[in-house]
């Protein structure tokens, strides 16, 4: 950041902002106009890059990108889980426009389902294999999404935000105090996904996070393909119309409640999947894993990246999760930066909301809606 003695005059600033805007639009424009094969090649390159990223042979050449204070492969696993959840929350918040403040609660439901059904420390001792429990975890989170959504999605706006906030707290407090859920002691020896290398060693384990990362990355790609198809269908149009104007959507014959419930349940299912992956990877689940802060971080990540845009959600989820870890082990003037990570995060969010409320990579429609709302405010005054 440069500090000048004289603040730039408004015209200069306006001109600079304009150049910035044009620069960004030029990139978007170039992407849209590029031949199909160029886009595919670039996309393939990005995917290959992310598959290669957790290998030390690769990331040691990447300069400042690897995290100094933490195992980079482990960090990348965390990042991938956040990205998966951001993609899921983006359906709820970005597409259907439902403010969900307790999204992490569904993650907890997924993780605990796996823990209870697979861990030897669980009371019911079913000891099912991981792979069998994943569909159960997804189904259960979906059911909890429907149970939470059915009474609340008939309400509008603020009510839903409050109810979801309460839901996440309920899950957390249940985890802390229900004897059945073991509180701080938690569940150990949660099994890993199946699969062995040629030499008989299991692929998935605690020490090497790479297979887990690759698994999550693959699932992200599959989920994104699914979500993309959905948004280009009648379902997607219905979601967007609900977000833009719920009354009008209903007047056009969109069964709004049904579609809101669908958005809510699909978002929940993705969080459940993320929770199941997390439980397997950590091998251990206890009540400390599910702070309310996590819900806020994911929501902020989606908005930061550009809610309503899948790429925006991915970038937001990835950047936020990565930056938080990046601060670890850095000292500045004797201060451990990691301790202040949320201070920076909050600061970035405030600045973002002032200068770019539609997010880093906004959705075209969303940007127009913002303009429209702003106009409405002025008219209303």
């Amino acid at each position: 950041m440069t500090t000048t003695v004289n603040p730039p005059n408004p015209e200069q600033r306006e001109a600079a902002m304009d150049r910035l805007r044009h620069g960004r639009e030029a990139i978007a424009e170039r992407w849209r106009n590029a031949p199909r094969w160029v886009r595919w090649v670039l996309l393939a390159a990005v995917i290959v890059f992310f598959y290669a990223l957790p290998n030390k042979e690769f990331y040691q050449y990447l300069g400042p990108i690897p995290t100094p204070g933490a195992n980079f492969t482990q960090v990348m696993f965390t990042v991938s889980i956040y990205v998966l959840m951001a993609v899921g929350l983006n359906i709820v918040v970005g597409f259907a426009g439902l403010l969900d403040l307790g999204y992490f609660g569904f993650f907890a439901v997924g993780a605990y389902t796996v823990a209870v059904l697979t861990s030897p420390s669980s009371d019911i001792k079913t000891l099912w294999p991981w792979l069998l429990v994943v569909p159960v975890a997804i189904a259960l989170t979906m059911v909890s999404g429907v149970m939470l959504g059915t009474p609340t999605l008939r309400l509008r706006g603020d009510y839903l935000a409050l109810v979801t906030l309460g839901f996440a707290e309920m899950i957390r407090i249940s985890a802390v105090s229900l004897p059945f859920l073991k509180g701080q002691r938690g569940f150990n020896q949660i099994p890993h996904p199946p699969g062995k290398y040629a030499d008989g060693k299991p692929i998935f384990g605690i020490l090497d996070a790479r297979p887990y990362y690759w698994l999550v990355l693959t699932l992200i790609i599959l989920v994104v393909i699914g979500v993309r198809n959905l948004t280009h269908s009648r379902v997607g149009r219905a979601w967007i119309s609900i977000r833009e104007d719920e009354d009008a959507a209903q007047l056009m014959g969109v069964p709004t409640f049904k579609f809101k419930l669908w958005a809510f349940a699909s978002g929940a299912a993705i969080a459940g999947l993320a929770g199941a992956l997390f439980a397997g990877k950590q091998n251990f689940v206890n009540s400390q894993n599910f702070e309310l802060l996590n819900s806020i971080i994911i929501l902020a990540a989606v908005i930061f990246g550009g809610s309503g845009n899948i790429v925006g959600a991915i970038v937001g989820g990835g950047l936020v999760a990565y930056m938080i870890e990046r601060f670890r082990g850095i000292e500045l003037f004797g201060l451990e930066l990691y301790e202040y990570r949320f201070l920076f995060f909050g600061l970035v969010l405030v600045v973002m909301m002032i200068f770019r409320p539609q997010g880093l990579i906004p959705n075209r429609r969303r940007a127009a809606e913002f303009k429209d709302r702003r106009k409405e405010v002025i008219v209303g005054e």
Partner: protein
Amino acid sequence: MLLEIDDVSLLYGRIQALHGISLTVDEGEIVALIGANGAGKSTTMRAISGIRPVASGRIRFNGEDVTKLRADLRVRRGLCQAPEGRGIFPGMTVLENLDMGAYTRRDRAGVAQDLNRVMELFPRLAERRKQAGGTLSGGEQQMLAVGRALMSRPKLLLLDEPSMGLAPMLIQQIFNIITEINEQGTTILLVEQNAQQALARAHRAYVLETGRIVKSGTGAELLHDPSVKEAYLGVA
């Protein structure tokens, strides 16, 4: 009778907005509902389209009791409302907005045909087809709202204040189009503050005051009714 409303009351919380309203719309008619601000005109529309549940009374549409029917299902029955003012989708383009109007329909050929018809009725919309709805002017948005409602090919078109906030010339124009739509065979129930225009165009009309219907008659009758003149037409 295409639409029959019998003794409908509606509450907003503890405030009673409609006190036992009854009205009918026959096939092929333009019926106007006039009244001052807060008389309950838009509320009546919301009750008919199903956005607001009624407290008591019955609504029959096309021979079917729709009192408890969900709003989106009423659209499927052929009851479509162009919402008041800014009820368009601001982030969608004009074409996407019109496309949403045809959300309940599966007959692609018919939809394409109706799209052409809307574009003919509103050449302005054709010019702006790729523009985001939120960036249109007030008049254009109003046209878009009417055009979008037409896309569902309704049996009964509900228009809520189609002339609100428009310049006098545009008001003329939008009422001409309303008459034209009606002549092409769509029944219309119209809510208006612009009583002069509404009464001149409507076959029949109702006057609404504080949630009650106080007068009804043909458009021409009410246009010459002294009390209506005084209260709504600005003539002493």
